[in-house]
Every structure is written in structure tokens, then in C-alpha cells.
């Protein structure tokens, strides 16, 4: 679910960059990038259950 929301956030940022103000796009971009790094840190520190 978190990745769906991140893709959705990126789509919103792209639409804001194309239609909205520059300030809005930059703010949304910063929030999305921080969310991506936070998601990465969560997954990097969680137990990884892989099966090959």
C-alpha cells in the first residue's frame, strides 16, 4: 500500500509541476522524496524474508 501511495504522490507532484505553481511542486516534491527515504530506511532495517 505504501508504494501505491508513493507512486500516487509522484503522479500528483508531476501534475503540480505541469499545471500548478512552482512553489507547490517543490513543496510536494520535498515531501515525496522524504517519504521515499523514510520507506527505504524502514525496509532496510526490517527483517527480509526472501524465499528462492
Amino acid at each position, binding site marked *: 500500500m*505504501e*508504494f*501505491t501511495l508513493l*507512486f500516487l504522490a509522484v*503522479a500528483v507532484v508531476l501534475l503540480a509541476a*505541469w499545471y500548478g505553481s512552482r512553489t507547490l511542486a517543490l513543496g510536494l516534491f520535498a515531501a515525496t522524496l522524504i517519504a*521515499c527515504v523514510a520507506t*527505504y530506511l524502514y525496509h532496510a532495517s526490517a527483517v527480509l*524474508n526472501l524465499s528462492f
Partner: protein
Amino acid sequence: MAPALAVTLNALGLYAIALVLAIAFGAQLILHELPCPLCLLQRIQFALLAVGPVLNVRFGPRPSHYALSLLVATAGAAFAMRQILLHIMPGDPGYGSALLGYHYYSWAFIGFAVAILALAAMLLFDRQFAAGKPLPQIGAFARAAVWLVIALTALNVVATLLECGFAACPDDPKHYELLSFGQ
């Protein structure tokens, strides 16, 4: 470099991002291999990489727009490197199928490294940032590039929702959560 040429090169960059997203999505459908969480995160970084070029096309080239893409490319390269290191032990088959000898995350690292080099090269040309020059007209070539990336990102929203459903995405996904009724 004139601003108009810089905008054209940014549009070409958007087409390159669209190609990466399309290949990843195509491989997912053709090979029936679902992207893992780290793979998805790398795809998200490729889509987010497009924000800088879109701003350059819309508002004209600015160093800050290139800086946004540099931040994303650096983060994306770090995420890809993390996945490469997860599978670096001898005998580890890696995650998913290899494409032309490299797994998706290896290609992703190469892609982000190329993006960093390309962005640094673009920043070398100061004349595109000259004040007082009128904004270049946005042509059909650039518009199509922007909408192609937005459409592929929207497609990934749907595909990821189908894969992960409304819960946390599994570390090693085997089927689409929302398409596996009764499994």
C-alpha cells in the same frame, strides 16, 4: 547552450525515463515477475526523476530544477546499490530474471549513475540560465514527453495497487493480491 535546446534535451530526458518505466513494466507483464519493495522504490525514483525536467520544460531551465533530479538520482543509486549488495554473495541467484546479463537493480544503478553524469553535463552550460531571455515555447514533442511519463506513473499506481492490495507489500511477492481471490 540556448534555453530552447536545453528544453529539448530535457524532453529527451523525459523520453528516456519513460523508456525505463515502460521496459520495467513490460518485463513485469511478459515475464510474470512481480517487483519487490526495493524494485518498486527504484521505479518510484525513476518517476520522481522526471520532476526536474518537467519544471525545466514548464518554467524554463534553472539550476535548482537540475538539483532536484540530482537528489533523486543519488537516492535512487543508493537504493539500487543496497539491493545489489543484498545479492552480492557468490551463488546468490539474485532477484528476478537477468536482462542482457544484469538484473533490474543493476540496470537501475547504471541508469541513475548515467542520470547523475548527464545532469552534471547539463549544468556546465551557463547560457541556458541567462536572465531576461524569454521562455521557450512548449512544443508537441515536449508535451508528449511530459504526458507519457505521467501516464506511465499512473499505470504504476494501478499495477502496484493490484500487486500489494491495501496491506503492506510482501518482501517476496508471488501474485497480485487484488487478483487472487480464493488463493
